[in-house]
């Protein structure tokens, strides 16, 4: 079954605007993580939110988690052209594996 489905699949915004990406999942999790991937490169960890947390901040990033709705959102505020990348949520299942969603491709236009 699919886990960690992101929405939207693609997002194009102007520099300075905020970008919001959503992620839904199906099973119980230990935590949920967001990763960034520049084209053709490896994944870089952005932020981890545990199942007992509701919101977490890291610089311009804000992540929320609603375990009752099995959903999470990633907000990037005051976006920059350098934020252009693909963003993936990954659910940390109780078995210990990370399952990634399809990702959201974000383009920030200067």
């Amino acid at each position, binding site marked *: 079954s699919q886990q960690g489905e992101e929405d939207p699949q693609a997002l194009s915004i102007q520099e300075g605007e905020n970008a919001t990406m959503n992620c839904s999942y199906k099973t119980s999790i*230990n935590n949920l993580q967001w990763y960034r991937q520049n084209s053709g*490169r490896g*994944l870089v*960890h952005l932020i981890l939110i545990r199942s007992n947390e509701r919101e977490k901040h890291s610089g311009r990033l804000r992540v929320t988690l609603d375990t009752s709705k099995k959903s999470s959102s990633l907000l990037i505020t005051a976006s920059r052209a350098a934020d252009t990348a693909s963003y*993936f949520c990954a659910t940390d299942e109780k*078995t*210990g*594996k*990370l399952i*990634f969603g399809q990702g959201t491709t974000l383009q920030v236009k200067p």
Partner: protein
Amino acid sequence: EPEVTQTPSHQVTQMGQEVILRCVPISNHLYFYWYRQILGQKVEFLVSFYNNEISEKSEIFDDQFSVERPDGSNFTLKIRSTKLEDSAMYFCATRGMNTEAFFGQGTRLTVV
């Protein structure tokens, strides 16, 4: 900052040949993973490895795949008889207990 190192960065191989992808995990990490990403698609889980054995594997990880940690440091993924559809980026990831995963830069495998 500690990092996961993968070699080679790019491997071109003939269909039917065996390939071995190598990963040097971050020391003291407990969990090791291989993922693959076909061009333009999502990152797919292949296998997780803990305490020197496979803890979980996906349906993609069939009999042509194997993993091992031969010398207690390197973590390898072997594909015995490559197919065209094995062409993808292969990522190694490692993590501690209940922490984020650190990914290597990946190996781009091209099967011709």
